[in-house]
């Protein structure tokens, strides 16, 4: 396993280096930030002073060398917008997104395992049809619409939940409900498909012939084997959420990394953008390694392949 982890980590270094360089180059292509930070009638002298103060008057290669040196020292510089440490801003924002993504995926995976298995137990039955239709709808609803309608119904009309914010227990419900809808819909369909296939396989027939009850067949035999494809899809969905649930963070005032990244792009705040992208990229690589470890734990063939 350690060999497997080491190999997996080493293979992540090159993509990470590409991300580090890519975000620097792409950010510079979006234009000079001076116009956004100086008054509209700023003089040429003020523009030059701004460029000098922020190192933007240096050749791009020199800026890149400074940036790479900073990355190695984990120093991303200061935010143009707030004057705070860019690395600190990214690290402060990331846990809030991770919490949101973690809760969302926990609920989506557990819910999809139950509902998907239930639907698959009698293919084309009433439960299957209802679940399939509902999950299709859930997978198709835009999250901003769900968020606004949720606020309107549960916060404004009924007054049961807060509209937004970060204090109190109720604040988790609407953001997570908004985020969970799509992953849940997608995962229900994946679990259902995998379970239909698993339930018709020879080892399940053998288990039935040995007298195993339905619960045992689903939980001990079929679900375990159906978990691999669900894990793949859940991994992709989690990566998407860790990358920033921008819409939800924006609407609910959630201080996460997705909103931080979007604001940094719009404000051409290069230092914060670079720090936020790197923090997210590292998290995604770690997440991918965890997913691979889960694969290995679930499937002996993967472990065997990793050894060779």
């Amino acid at each position, binding site marked *: 396993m350690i060999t497997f982890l080491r190999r997996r980590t080493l293979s992540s270094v090159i993509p990470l280096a590409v991300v580090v360089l890519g975000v620097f180059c792409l950010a510079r292509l979006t234009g000079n930030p001076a116009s956004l930070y100086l*008054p*509209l009638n700023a003089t040429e002298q003020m523009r030059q002073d701004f460029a000098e103060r922020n190192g933007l008057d240096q050749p791009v290669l020199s800026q890149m060398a400074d940036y790479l040196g900073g990355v190695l020292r984990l120093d991303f510089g200061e935010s143009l917008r707030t*004057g705070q440490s860019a690395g600190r801003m990214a690290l*402060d924002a990331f846990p*809030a997104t991770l919490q949101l993504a973690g*809760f969302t995926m926990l609920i989506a995976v557990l819910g999809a395992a139950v509902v998907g298995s239930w639907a698959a137990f009698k293919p084309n039955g009433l439960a299957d049809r209802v679940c399939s239709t509902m999950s299709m709808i859930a997978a198709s609803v835009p999250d901003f619409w769900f968020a606004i309608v949720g606020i309107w119904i549960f916060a404004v009309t009924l*007054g049961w939940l807060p509209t937004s914010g970060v*204090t109190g227990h109720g604040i988790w419900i609407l953001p997570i409900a908004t985020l969970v809808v799509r992953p849940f819909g997608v995962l229900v369909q994946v679990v259902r498909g995998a379970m239909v296939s698993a339930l018709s396989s020879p080892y399940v027939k053998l288990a039935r012939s040995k007298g195993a009850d339905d619960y045992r067949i689903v939980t001990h035999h079929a679900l375990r084997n159906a978990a691999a494809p669900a894990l793949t899809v859940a991994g992709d969905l989690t990566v998407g959420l860790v990358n920033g649930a921008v819409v939800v963070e924006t609407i609910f005032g959630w201080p996460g990394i997705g909103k931080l990244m979007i604001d940094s792009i719009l404000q051409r705040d290069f230092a914060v953008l670079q720090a936020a992208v790197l923090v997210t990229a590292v998290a995604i690589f770690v997440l991918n390694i965890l997913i691979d470890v889960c694969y290995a*734990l679930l499937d002996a063939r993967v472990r065997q392949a990793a050894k060779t």
Partner: protein
Amino acid sequence: MSQPSQSRATRRNRMIGRFRVARRRTAVAALAAGFAVLVSSCTVANSDSLGGSGSGLRIVLPEEPPTLEPCESSLTSTGVVVRSNITQPLIERDPKSGDLSPLLSTGWKRTSDTRWTFTMREGVRFQDGTAFNARDAAYSIERAVNSDLGCNVDGYVFGEDPLDVEAVDERTLTVESKEPDPILPLRLSFVEIVPTSTGTAKKVRQPVGTGPYEIGRWDTGLKLRLDRNKRYWGKAPSYENVTYQWRAEGTVRAAMVTSDEADVALKLGPLDGAGDRGVNHPNNETTALRLTGEEPPLDDPRVRQAVNYALDKRGIVKSLFSGLGKPAGQLVPSGVLGHNPSIKPWPHDLKKARALVKAAKADGVPTGKQILMVGRHELFPRVSETAEVLQEQLTQAGLNIKLKMVDESAHLEYQLRPFVPDAGPVALLIQHGNQAGDAAFTVDQYMTSKGAQSVMGTKGFDKVIEEAGRKSGKQRQKAYEELLKQQNGDITQFAHIAHMRGVVALSPNVSYRPNSATNDELRLADIRPAG
């Protein structure tokens, strides 16, 4: 003999198998436990230190202030919190009458063409306990205008030339400009006063001032709380503390007021759902198309006039702005010195617009050449729909319009010198806000031939503008009125659309009358409990 050895091997394999299963379960359990620890805390990361707002005032803004640096207070997101709340200027402008009134300075007079003398108020203390005097005022002006800090207020209000500032004694300050400046006191009303202990090497994020509130706690990304300044020299404000939150979505800001999570929500659109809680107010913003005059077909004055005739301003205000606005005929709104009440908006006359385009075409002007109309996302509510309507109306007049919606940074490349090269003829959708209260702040930028945001102009017109800027009082008003009329006739750089109005949502618990400065300078002392 083989039987015992086989069973030993079987037992060993079973043990290995059990060990592997146990190890796998342990690993899964460890992963699950780590995951649970990660996500199971009940508070959002980094939010546990938040205090409640108690019985104070709750305000929701569209965005978090990037900084509370006083010399950046001409930035809307900073100024709305800082100005006249945490820090104060020497002189305050009344947004309703436009008159200047004493604040940290009790009186001022012009002592020569270029010099003004100010008298400082006595008995004022900063929030850190130090006494305010003329040295602090001189230091604040030097810091904002003459230093290398790159303050926003410097470029926004003052020109390239530095000011000569001197604290003559504890109570007397003189400020001298290189050229005669009749509106220097108005310009200085944008400089917030800080104590001499404030640094000049770097901007400060959390300043000390003389205002009625001081910074209580700022949990970056989450909330900002201001507490009543117990040393305040004036009348104590009504609320013990004020909590600011920020939500980017107007519908959410409105919902926070209707569901009693906030008392005041700023910068709402007419369709954000504030309902009965919404109060509309002038915001000194004017929307217009700015037309380039160097390339055909927009270099022909008849085509620029046709653009003005083609726009149905009344229809746009009624249907797209929900009636919140007034068709505009000039870039300077009423309430700002220099506004010309005799200028009426161009009438909507599509036949005339078509005739003008046809006449230009007959004279060889390539009226079919594509004109790029550039709009900006989130410039004002329903901006995309407005841009599409403008495109359609100009197309009906016989022009070839291509619409391009961009973000703020890309829009600034079209808006500010040096303009995007080889962009061809451009009709830029702009929204200009004159918050300073004097037409000079509009005209110098938008109408001089080398103005930062001007794409047309003549040397003769530059001279007219320069002369108007030297005048004061009624003569100044008259001069700007005339030049705004001349702009529409001789130059026609703009096709004005509307003088806009904003919406503020107010809880029934508060009493406040929003004004043209509300979005830039929300004076907390003006907000009181209802009843």
